[in-house]
């Protein structure tokens, strides 16, 4: 039998690394589990605030409040105006915004693939589902400073009051990308993020696919 001390065998680095991994993964697991309720509560608040933000201008126009005061009075305002619903055949997390008896629109939780991973957004539509009221991206893994700029206000503002159904053909609107900074000449032109063409195209594809699905749920649920 060899008398080589264990510390000098080839197994020692493996055992050492394994032990270090177990210790630190254990510490992180405990830390994460103890913080999870707080993180989840914040994520839920943030999600609901985004839905409220999409309908805040409409709610403000019907009430004596401003969009800011409606957002400031969360969660009461959310509970008063927003309701989770399930539209027939549409297997997406859906919400309905109403002020008293007047229906303001629907909000859908949609998803698609970006350049580096999946992305998720909340898209608000008018009651007839033909026009977007707005869109907010709440989860994406794109490159900071490039693709991640799809979450910036100037990009998202382009989707406010945007027709998603072509009135002539009745089909889902086909969008055209134009360079950043160029003035849009029609309501189907979207300014792309410079240096992030694939990400911008992914956002457009996500919207087109999901709007198509919402209008034709019988065509099947996309994976």
């Amino acid at each position: 039998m060899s008398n080589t001390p264990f510390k000098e065998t080839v197994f020692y680095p493996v055992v050492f690394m394994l032990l270090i991994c177990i210790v630190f993964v254990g510490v992180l697991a405990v830390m994460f589990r103890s913080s999870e309720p707080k993180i989840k509560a914040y994520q839920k608040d943030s999600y609901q605030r985004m839905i409220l933000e999409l309908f805040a201008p409409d709610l403000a126009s019907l009430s004596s409040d401003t969009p800011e005061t409606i957002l400031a009075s969360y969660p009461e305002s959310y509970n008063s105006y927003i309701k989770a619903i399930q539209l027939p055949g549409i297997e997406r997390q859906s919400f309905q915004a109403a002020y008293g008896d007047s229906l303001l629109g629907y909000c859908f939780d949609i998803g698609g693939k970006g350049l580096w991973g999946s992305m998720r957004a909340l898209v608000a539509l008018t009651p007839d589902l033909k026009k977007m009221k707005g869109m907010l991206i709440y989860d994406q893994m794109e490159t900071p400073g490039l693709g991640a700029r799809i979450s910036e206000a100037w990009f998202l503002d382009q989707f406010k009051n945007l027709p998603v159904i072509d009135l002539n053909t009745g089909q889902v609107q086909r969008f055209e990308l134009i360079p950043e900074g160029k003035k849009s000449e029609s309501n189907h032109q979207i300014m792309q993020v410079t240096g992030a063409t694939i990400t911008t195209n992914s956002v457009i594809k996500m919207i087109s696919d999901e709007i198509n699905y919402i209008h034709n749920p019988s065509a099947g649920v996309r994976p």
Partner: protein
Amino acid sequence: MTKKQIFITSAFTENSVWRQILGICSALAVTNLMMNSLIMGLGVTFSLALSGFTISLIRNWTPRSVRMMVQTLIIAAYVIIVDIFLKANMPDISKQLGPYVGLIITNCILMGRAEAFASQNTPLDSMIDGIGAGVGYSLVLLLIGFIRELFGFGSIFGIKVLGAWWTPWSIMVMAPSAFFILAMLIWIINIKYYKSKG
């Protein structure tokens, strides 16, 4: 070296940013607001101090062949702790800092201090060295953040100090301004301190 000398060398004489030109990426990315700079600085200081302490503590048992993997793992663990803490207790700041907290793992200052100091010195000295490097890094971030926030937003730590008469300089909000400020800072320190000492 005494504990005080270790701290001063790490924080000022051999400052990681202006002397060793390390950690530049985050120094440019998060310095548009002083609060972001402060939180980033605290996160890096915490990770530096504790990773230095831990790496030094186990240095006699760490096999040479896997030492860099061990260092990366320890640094990553402390950075994830910072990330979880911010997500749970300071969600707005966590959102503003975005991916940059996670990217502390790739901050060259941490691996640099682990390899150059912690793997060869006692745990307490390594911790002081880590705190010093973190303080030095935070000072640079706060200085750049101060200039950018003051001229870009007219505020300091979110408090308006310049009135409505002030026209914000948009360039200060954008990343290139940090390039210019950092370059000027390095130039001034080199001229005033290192060159004068020969």
